[in-house]
């Protein structure tokens, strides 16, 4: 049934997973304060529903989603909201974002949870709404609201639910450990998603460098039909949905389209687990498994932590930082972002926290491109990164777009192989940012145009009304005179 077509390009970076994957998932102790940014998902910022000083229980809704494309925020523990306002965001810029600060009371008391008796008996759309209410977003780093995907999928005919357990980024092993230790829950979650989408089958794809996870998932899916656990080759970026779909189904997602266009819906293993927790136990997404690793971490391992826990606390519980890290990252080394400090909180999309040592981070000055076309060979999207970068360098954004910027997934394979050490990904980030800027400027331009046209129309109307009133007044003034005159 499965045509194991190979994906093009890709790289084989050193995995560095052994140390963190060897230890079981540890529970992170409750920190004194939790910092909760209001936007931990793709889409609109959540709107606070509680006041400063309010006492909240664990799992209580703190901020609701204003639009479809958004996700609510729940209290990870019980305590008091001591501040609502700007907090330091886990973002490379070090800027602040709106958020809440929750002072934990240590009781960790749950709110009354609405636990469905048998989710399989419930209406699929109601289940999708439950996922939305639980604030589940893509935990692989994409942070796209899971319910939006489910609802979208419900409108299409979905053949396959693809559980993405490939985890191709070096260092990260949180999905690996999750699949090993909570295989039944992940399989249950996958079956719930299958139920929601009425999909025909489930495929669980795991890279072949995780034999333990493969075995565990195979054992857990044994009792059910229509679940297939496939080993995919360990290759970066296998975890990217488009590449994984191509590998597993042999079909390519059309450019500009979604995976539903080829009858597949992809969810990360961590997300599947979170969905299972929401549907089986009514628990909103308030915690996740995070890999804490890197050469500067004393005791690299996976930790299940509450959302909002400061990064420093996680490093402390993993043996502390041995040295001043050369690079502090949120996510994996390929697509992760630099953290401005260790004070920032863990968010829903945090797959890993890396404190990389000097020898782990390449630091070479970049040289001119020699057009060796290694980036072309490595690009999993079949683009020409060198041409895109050359055009971005001279700010020819349309040219860059034409050479593939619009299809770029920013996976970083090109930068990884570049012998000239050109920061290709940063060029593309810059170009994408500039295009966003242009687009928003054009939107604003249109908006302003509409506004000024509306204003002109209104002024003309007012003028006409005034003139009419004046004329009426004049008529009134002249009419009585006429009456007298004869």
């Amino acid at each position, binding site marked *: 049934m499965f045509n194991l077509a190979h994906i093009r390009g890709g790289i084989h970076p050193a995995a560095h997973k052994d140390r963190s994957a060897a230890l079981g998932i540890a529970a992170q102790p409750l920190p004194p304060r939790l910092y909760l940014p209001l936007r931990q998902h793709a889409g609109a910022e959540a709107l606070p529903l509680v006041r400063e000083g309010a006492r909240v229980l664990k799992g209580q809704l703190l901020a609701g989603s204003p639009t479809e494309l958004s996700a609510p925020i729940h209290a990870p523990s019980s305590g008091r909201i001591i501040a609502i306002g700007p907090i330091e965001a886990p973002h490379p810029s070090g800027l602040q974002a709106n958020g809440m600060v929750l002072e934990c009371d240590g009781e960790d008391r749950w709110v009354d949870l609405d636990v469905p008796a048998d989710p399989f008996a419930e209406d699929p759309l109601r289940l999708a709404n439950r996922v939305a209410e639980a604030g589940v977003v893509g935990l692989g780093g994409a942070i796209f609201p899971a319910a939006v995907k489910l609802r979208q999928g419900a409108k299409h005919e979905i053949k396959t639910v693809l559980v993405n357990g490939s985890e191709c980024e070096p260092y990260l092993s949180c999905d690996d450990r999750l699949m090993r230790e909570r295989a039944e829950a992940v399989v249950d979650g996958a079956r719930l998603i299958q139920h929601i989408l009425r999909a025909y089958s489930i495929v669980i794809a795991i890279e072949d460098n995780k034999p333990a996870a493969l075995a565990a998932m195979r054992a857990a899916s044994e009792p059910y039909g229509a679940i297939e656990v496939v080993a995919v080759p360990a290759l970066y970026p296998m975890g990217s949905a488009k590449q994984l779909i191509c590998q597993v189904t042999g079909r390519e997602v059309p450019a500009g389209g979604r995976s539903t266009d080829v009858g597949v819906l992809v969810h990360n293993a961590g997300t599947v687990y979170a969905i299972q927790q929401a549907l089986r136990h009514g628990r909103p997404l308030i915690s996740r498994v995070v890999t804490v690793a890197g050469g500067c971490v004393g005791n690299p391992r996976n930790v299940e932590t509450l959302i909002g826990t400061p990064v420093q606390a996680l490093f402390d519980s993993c043996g502390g930082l041995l040295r001043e890290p050369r690079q502090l990252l949120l996510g994996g080394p390929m697509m992760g972002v630099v953290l401005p400090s260790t004070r920032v909180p863990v968010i829903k999309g945090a797959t890993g926290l890396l404190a990389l040592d000097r020898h782990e981070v390449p630091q070479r000055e970049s040289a001119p491109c020699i057009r060796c076309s290694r980036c072309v060979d490595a690009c999993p999207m079949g683009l020409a990164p060198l041409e895109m970068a050359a055009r971005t360098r001279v700010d020819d954004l349309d040219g860059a777009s034409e050479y593939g910027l619009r299809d770029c997934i920013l996976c970083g394979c090109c930068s990884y192989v570049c012998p000239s050490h*050109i920061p290709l990904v940063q060029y593309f980030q*810059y170009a994408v940012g500039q295009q966003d800027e242009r687009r928003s400027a054009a939107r604003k*331009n249109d908006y302003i145009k509409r506004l000024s046209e509306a204003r002109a129309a209104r002024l003309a109307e007012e003028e006409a009304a005034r003139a009419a009133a004046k004329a009426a007044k004049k008529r009134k003034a002249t009419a009585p005179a006429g009456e007298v005159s004869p």
Partner: protein
Amino acid sequence: MLGAILVLALMGLLLGGGLGLAARYLAVSEENPLIKEIEALMPGSQCGQCGYPGCSAAASALVEGRAAVTCCPPGGVALAERLAELLGVPLDAGAIAAPVLARIEAAECTGCMRCYRACPTDAIVGASGQIHCVLSNACTGCGKCLEACPEDCIALAPQAPTLDHWRWAKPQAA
């Protein structure tokens, strides 16, 4: 000699006549469609920041090459690029002024409504006697409210950095 003159004259006549006929069959309308096209692109707020009385005047100035493609601050880089492409002129991205927004100092605002009336894009909201406020997504930074304000409590400033407006910088590398 006479033959040469005759031949040349004949050729001239023939070619001239032929071209005249061709010009009639292949005539194109003289009116420049470019001005209309450019005017449609301009913000249309008639703010006058370009130095021309309104957007259509600026459009014809652009077509005639009297105005630079970077003359419209509300349009920003996006507009300048479109204009440069349409007019086939090189774009000096450095010449584009960074966008600014008006900001009302709440403490000094008396709620006189003058800025509200002056704003060409209805970007100022407020009622008589109440503090006014600028809608950042509608403000072009034209500064007409500054002139109108009797309290001098409006200032133009670049937008404060937020995560929504943060962009990756261009690499410095070779």
